């Protein structure tokens, strides 16, 4: 079954909104049981180098990331705003590419462009829902401003 384009767009909208609202458990729930999540600087990707800023090759690692974010990590106090562009949907409707921008706003209301790049997702269908099996965040803004704590 090929998912309709509307469902793919809804999933992407949900993805960004959940991070912006800091609802990380619900965000994790968008991923499949067996999944991969990577943030790779374009500089590495273009040279065929595998190292990323975030490299989670299992759901357990992704859950650990979120736990560390809550339990241990300290970072700049800010809110995120994801702006996810229209996706290009490929093949069986389960592969997509979507541009994104993430703006960060600090406590004093200053906003800066934090990151822009491309999502490359591979999805699967579980029951009535779309799940992310493999997400590659290809980061154009690989000179990371300050630090990267909350997921992109």
């Amino acid at each position, binding site marked *: 079954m090929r998912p309709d384009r509307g469902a793919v767009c809804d999933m992407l909208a949900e993805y960004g909104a959940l991070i912006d609202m800091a609802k990380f458990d619900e965000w994790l729930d968008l991923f499949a049981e067996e999944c991969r999540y990577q*943030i*790779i*600087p374009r*500089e*590495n990707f273009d*040279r065929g*180098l*595998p*190292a*990323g*800023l*975030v*490299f*989670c*090759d*299992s759901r*357990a*690692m992704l*859950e*650990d*990331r979120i*736990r*560390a974010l809550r*339990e*241990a*990590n*300290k*970072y*700049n106090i800010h809110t995120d705003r994801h702006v996810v562009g229209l996706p290009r949907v490929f093949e069986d409707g389960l592969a997509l590419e979507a541009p994104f921008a993430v703006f960060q706003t600090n406590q004093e209301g200053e906003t800066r462009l934090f990151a822009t790049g491309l999502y490359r997702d591979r999805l699967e269908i579980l029951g009535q829902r779309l799940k992310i099996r493999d997400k590659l965040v290809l980061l154009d803004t*690989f*000179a*990371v*401003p*300050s*630090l*990267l*704590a909350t997921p992109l």
Partner: protein
Amino acid sequence: MATVTAAIWPALDYSRVPYRLYHDAEIYTREQERIFRGPVWSYLGLDSEIPEPGDFRATWVGETPVIFNRDKSGSVKAFVNRCAHRGALVRRELSGNADEHICIYHQWCYGLDGSLTAIPFRRGIRGKGGLDPTFEMRRHGLRPLRVGNINGALFGTLSEDAEPLEDFLGPPILAQLRRLLDRPVRVLGYNRQRIRGNWKLYAENTRDNYHASLLHEFLVTFGLDRSTQTGGVKMDARHRHNITWAEADSDTDEFAHQAYAGAGVRNDFLSLKAPSLVAFRPERDDKLNLVVTSVFPSAVFVQISNSLAVRQIRPRGVDEVEVFQTMLGYEDDPPEMTLHRLRQTNLVGPAGLVSMEDGEAIEIVHRASRPDPERTTVIELGGGGVISDRDYRVTDVPLRGFWSYYAELLGIEPEGAVR
């Protein structure tokens, strides 16, 4: 330049550092001249990044753009990436392979040794224009750097006065670099971070043993590294460089609980769902699972568990620093070990579980210290006075070593100061 003098230091043991040193544009200019273009060796990159003749990479020595490449004979050459003609960047790409370097502005052409080899319309057109016949091309090459190589780590200096690289590093640092680079390395990737703070705050941070398990709570909470482990700091004879080290499995949970609880610091230990993130696989016959080797002024060689990296501190004006990090594995790593290292890259870098906090810490110091240039930091963990190695971890003595050599190079070392 006369406004900053040795009188700036309130204490001869460098236990007080005036905030002015992080914010003053005049001081920053002097640092570029006396430190980065002065008698130090700066990390350039890795031999393995330019394996073939003609391979080149762009790098920085302070704010000076530099190219290093491999010439046709196989030896590594480095020079300032700035055209002798009008001062343009000659090589704009960050890496590649070429037979020569040609400036786009007027197409002056340089060989892989940096020598000027061709100038368009050198004799003009129909005998008119061009350069005077007395113009000596050999005097207008790209400014060379002396290059040194320690097990594949390339260093360069712009100064005639720099001592030999091995002497500059000193035996303990040399031994650590040779240990980390005891086999050919493979680059797994790069990451970059722009921190809105002075570059010296980063240089201090890497020498600050005290902050590690307090700022980076992940270290203790998830059992990767605790100040209760056997460890310490070791410096070169001039105390400009530092090795922060710790041994794996050298304390007990019970002792660590007591120590952290007694200090009023959080001490509940949690476990990960994917514990390979913090699993240490010994790779040689020592127990070291944390070695942070800071080389004055701008290089840091890092082993945290099985993640290996070189960090280059790139000043970007008085108020900003870029940290450029090269993630490494060994060429002979089996695929499974490469995967283990890739997982542990999560620990370090701008998104690193035990490093992201540094970006925030540096920015909040830079922001809060700016308005009061005469006020100072307090550097007294491990005591004041003599600067020496310590076999314990609650110390920031190596920061005083950094400042001692900094003061010498800037020409602001007070009489009777500790070294």
